[in-house]
C-alpha cells in the first residue's frame, strides 16, 4: 500500500474521476478539487506529496495556482504535473518556475500518467 497523497485539480469531472480511480487503484490517497482556488486551499491545508492540475480552470488557472504554491512555505516544495489541452501555449520558463516538473497533453493515457507520477515521486523528473 502506497501512503502518498496526490491532489488532482480539473474542472472536467470526467477527467477528475478517471485520474482519481487510476491513482486509487495504484494505492495512492487522492484529494480532488474542481477549481484553482479550491485546489490551492486544499494543497495548503493537506500538503500532498504531488499535485496534478489542469491549466484552464475557473477562479484560478492551474499555472497561477502552482505559482502561488511556490510562494507559500507550506507548499513550496510540492512538485506538480500539468495535464492540459493547451500545453503548447505555455512558456517552459513559467512552468519550471512554478514547480511544474512535467507537462502532459490531453488526450492523455492514464497508464502514462501513472508512470509519470511514479517518476516524479521517485525524484527522477527533477
Amino acid at each position, binding site marked *: 500500500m502506497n501512503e502518498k497523497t496526490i491532489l488532482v485539480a480539473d474542472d472536467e469531472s470526467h477527467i477528475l474521476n478517471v485520474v482519481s480511480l487510476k491513482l486509487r487503484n495504484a494505492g495512492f490517497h487522492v484529494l480532488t478539487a474542481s477549481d484553482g482556488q479550491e485546489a490551492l486551499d486544499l494543497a495548503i491545508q493537506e500538503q500532498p506529496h504531488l499535485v496534478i492540475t489542469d491549466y484552464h480552470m475557473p477562479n484560478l488557472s492551474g499555472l497561477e495556482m502552482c505559482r502561488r504554491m511556490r510562494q507559500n512555505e507550506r507548499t513550496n516544495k510540492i512538485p506538480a504535473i500539468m495535464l492540459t*489541452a493547451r500545453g503548447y501555449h505555455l512558456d517552459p520558463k513559467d512552468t519550471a518556475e512554478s514547480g511544474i516538473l512535467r507537462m502532459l497533453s490531453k488526450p492523455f493515457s492514464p497508464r502514462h500518467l501513472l508512470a509519470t507520477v511514479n517518476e516524479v515521486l521517485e525524484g527522477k523528473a527533477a
Partner: protein
Amino acid sequence: MVPNDRRAQVQDVRSQRSGHAALTADPIGCDPSIAALIQELQGADHRQGQRVMERRVMTAAGERTFIVIRSPISPEGGMVVVCQDTTNERAISEMKNDFVSMVSHELRTPLASIKAYVEMLIDGEAQDEKTRSDFYDVIQNEANRLGRLIDNILNISRIESGVARTNMEAQTLDPILDDAIGVITPQAQEKKITIINRRSPVNYQTSIDREMLYQAVLNLLSNAIKYTEIGGKITVETSVDVVRKVVLTRIIDTGVGIPPKDVPYVFDKFYRAEANNRIAPGTGLGLALVRHIIETVHKGRVFVESQIGQGSCFGFELPTFTS
C-alpha cells in the same frame, strides 16, 4: 501605390476597397507616421533591386500594417513602391488562428475523456459492473458531445455559404424540446441541475426544419448547463402570442449571467464574453449558429436577457404556421 520618380512625386492610386488607411498624394497632409514612411521609401537606394517588407505604423487611428513592395523601374533611380494596407487581413488571420486553437481545445476535451475511459476499461481498472456501466455512459455522452461540436462547425459554414439544405415541415415544437432535454439530461445530472418544464398547453404548428431546430435548442440547453452552477435550475418555457402570431420558447437558467456590455454581442460569431471565458472555454460558434438557424432558416427572432449573478434567459420566437 506610390510611383516615385526623380522629382519625388507621390501619387495615391489607392483602391476603393474599404478599410484602407488614408495615404494621400500629399505626404504632409496625411497622418504623420504614414508621411514618414513615404519619405523614408522615397529616400531608399534604388540600386538594391526589388524588396518586399512588412511595416507596422502607428497612426492616429491605431496601429496599421503595410506590406511594402519596392521595385526600381529605371536606371536613373525611379521606382514604384506599393504599400498595401494589410491590417484587416492580419486581424482576420489572427481571428482564424484563435478559432483553430479554440476548436482544437474543444475537440480535445471530450476526446480526452473517451480515450482515457477506453484505456481504463482495456486495463481492467473498472472493477465492478456499476463502474463499467458508468464508464460506457461517459464514453457515449462524450462521443455525442464531440459529434455536436462537429455538427456546429459544419452547419454554420453550410448556412453561411447558403448550401444548407433545409427540410421545412409544419409541426409542433414540443417533441423537439423533449428530445433535446432527453439528450442533455445526463450532463445536467452531473451538475445536479434540475430541468423544469413550463410548457404552454396550447400547441401551435410552426414551419420547422426538425434537425436544425433540435440543434439550436440543444446549443441553448448545453450553454445553460455550462454556465449554471451545481444545484441550479433550468426552466424550459413555451408560450404563444396570438396577436403577433408567434410561438415563443425561453430557456431560463439560474447561472452566472452575462455582463451588460457583452449582452448585445453574444450571438455574434466568435464573440466570447471575457468573464465567461474564465468559467468555461468555447468556440464562440454555438450561439451564432442558433441565430442563423432561427433567423436565417426559420425567419424567426432570437433574444436574450441577463442579470449578473441571477441568470440568463435565451429565447426565440417562430412564426405560427399559416397554410
